[in-house]
């Protein structure tokens, strides 16, 4: 996954001189998570810019440079720190085109890891996609495989809208096939990650991987699960979700965020409205627990959506 992201940036930077990266430790340190490894040596300090620990400046410089036609990639060391840059994204990146009556565009990407890592506690383990997906003017992308990560990041860099590109720290070591040839995957395109007949699970980013693990176990007891990965939350490719739910008649939505006002609630709302006649059970959501992330390993495990919780939810929509 890490290499796929690196390749996407390397290829796009080679292709288009207006693309540049800035963020904490992206250059000389080779990336806090080594995603930008080697880029400084290839492209130089003006295109791979180490910044002070100043998230508002990182995001703001990206927005300003994008206004005059550059294509910045602002790396957040993790999205937990992006809260310090929220004003730049929500009040500026997402608003200037609108407030200027279409005169301005902001072709930037803000990317970095989001979600829980391993035992880093409450301030470093948050899933904030719902905050960004709430805001009109933004695009929010969350890949779950190396192939998607590369193809979607290339689209994000080339796209002329501000894209919030949320990776996942735990998935950085995930292995997977990536096409040799040049390709990109459009944003706003969902994918069936595992076809099945009995239940639809909608999940993105790390929970999608968890859902696939749950599906394997459920197959052992004869339950054939279909896993749909929306891949992009805004714009949401809802048709593929509806198509799946109309086939299976049952739906579980899994996310790493909190339950209240989490993005899964938006999906659940759309599914119950659009697929009402097809549903054989209410939509059930699996989320993280509604508390800040605890430090202890045992508590952390209990906090997150684990395969067991997903399996339990699938049993419930099947009335088993």
């Amino acid at each position, binding site marked *: 996954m890490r290499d796929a992201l690196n390749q996407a940036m390397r290829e796009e930077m080679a292709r288009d001189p207006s693309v540049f990266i800035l963020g904490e430790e992206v250059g000389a340190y080779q990336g806090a998570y080594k995603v930008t490894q080697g880029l400084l040596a290839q492209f130089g300090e003006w295109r791979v810019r180490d910044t002070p620990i100043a998230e508002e400046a990182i995001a703001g*410089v990206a927005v300003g440079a994008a206004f005059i036609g550059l294509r910045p990639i602002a790396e957040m060391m993790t999205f937990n720190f992006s809260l310090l840059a929220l004003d*730049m994204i929500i009040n500026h990146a997402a608003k200037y*085109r609108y*407030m200027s009556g*279409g005169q301005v565009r902001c072709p930037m990407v803000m990317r970095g890891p989001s979600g829980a890592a391993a035992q880093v506690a409450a301030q470093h383990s948050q899933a904030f996609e719902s905050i960004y997906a709430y805001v009109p003017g933004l695009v929010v992308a969350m890949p779950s495989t190396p192939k998607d990560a590369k193809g979607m990041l290339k689209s994000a860099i080339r796209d002329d809208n501000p894209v919030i590109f949320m990776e996942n720290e735990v998935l950085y070591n995930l292995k997977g096939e990536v096409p040799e040839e040049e390709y990109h995957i459009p944003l706003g395109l969902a994918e069936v990650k595992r076809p099945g007949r009995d239940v639809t699970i909608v999940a993105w980013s790390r929970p999608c991987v968890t859902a696939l693990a749950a599906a394997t176990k459920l197959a052992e007891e004869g339950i054939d699960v279909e896993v749909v990965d929306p891949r992009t939350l805004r714009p949401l490719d809802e048709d593929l979700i509806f198509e799946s739910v109309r086939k299976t008649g049952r739906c579980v939505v899994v996310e790493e965020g909190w339950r209240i006002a989490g993005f899964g609630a938006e999906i659940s709302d759309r599914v119950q409205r659009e697929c009402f006649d097809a549903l054989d059970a209410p939509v059930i959501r699996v989320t993280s627990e509604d508390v800040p992330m605890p430090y202890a390993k045992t508590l952390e495990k209990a906090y997150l959506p684990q395969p067991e919780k997903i399996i339990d939810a699938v049993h419930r929509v099947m009335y088993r």
Partner: protein
Amino acid sequence: MNRDEAFGLYKQMLLIRRFEERCAQLYVEGRIGGFLHLYIGQEAVGVGAMSVMRPDDYLIAYYRDHGYALARGTDPRLLLAELCGKFTGISRGKGGSMHFYDVARGNFGGDGIVGGHLPLAAGIGYGIRLRNTDQVCLCFFGDGAVNEGAFHEALNVSALWDLPVVYIIENNRYGMGTSIDRASSVKDLYQRASAYGIPRREINGMDLLAVRNAVTEAIERARTEKRPTLLEADTYRYRGHSMSDPGKYRTKEEVEEMMKSDPILLWGKRLLEQERFTQADLDAVDKEVLARMDETVAFVEASPDPPVESMYEDVYVRSPYINMKAAEKDPAWRAAIREDRVPPALPPPAPAAAPAAAPAAPNPAEATVQATAKVGS
């Protein structure tokens, strides 16, 4: 500066003054809504700074932004239409008073978040460096912004990376109703630049020439040395923070005292004393500007309200990298276009008003020194 140019700057300041006086009137009549932050009293800062920018330079400013757009040459009809929420407005009725963008003139507008545009100015500066041109970015903000974290982050990276940005504090002494004495531990705001090793200077913001000279020097530094500058222009706003502010935090005497050094009054005096213009010349240009305002109001009155469907436009850019089939279920994506919009160049208003050029050189003997037009507000 030659005499025509000096006269032209007088006219620009007067245009801003008369434009905003008309805005205040229209606000009271309920034809302009929301927040209306008037620049009256501060005109010399924007006009002076803008007069030494190149056409290909950039500017980004805060919400008290009418003066910059007018000084940069944006048609007042597009601006007043914006204020009145008309579809003919510069932002098609989506921005209002605080958001006067004119990208064709390098104007990235008024920002409504105090200090929020300073990192953006640094970003414009970064983009200039990356493209390796000799453009510069001017960034205007009020004294309130220096207490925001964004100010410090932006100044630090501007100095660290040698960005061609001129930061201009318009110190009008009050952040809304709180005086700088109650808001800033350091009273000389320009001294804050010393924390970042940035060249700094305090200037009399009521004196157009002082502003021009200081900004010229700062722009030169940005253009050739790629270094930022922090300028503090001491100025004053005669009106409240916005139209809803009765200004009870300061005395009437203080306001009246400041109005004695009105920038338009001072510049008018200079035209009379040093540039051989007459009071009649100044009166004539005032009449011309007032006539232009009448035409501006007439244009706005004839302008349509935005159609409701236009609400969904200008959120996104249509893109080949988005699965539009899915996106288009959302009206904002359906209405997205690929291009950027460019506000139209309006034809000149029908009955031509008084000639715009400076009058022919009058006989120096006729030059009289007297109070200029009644420009106080």
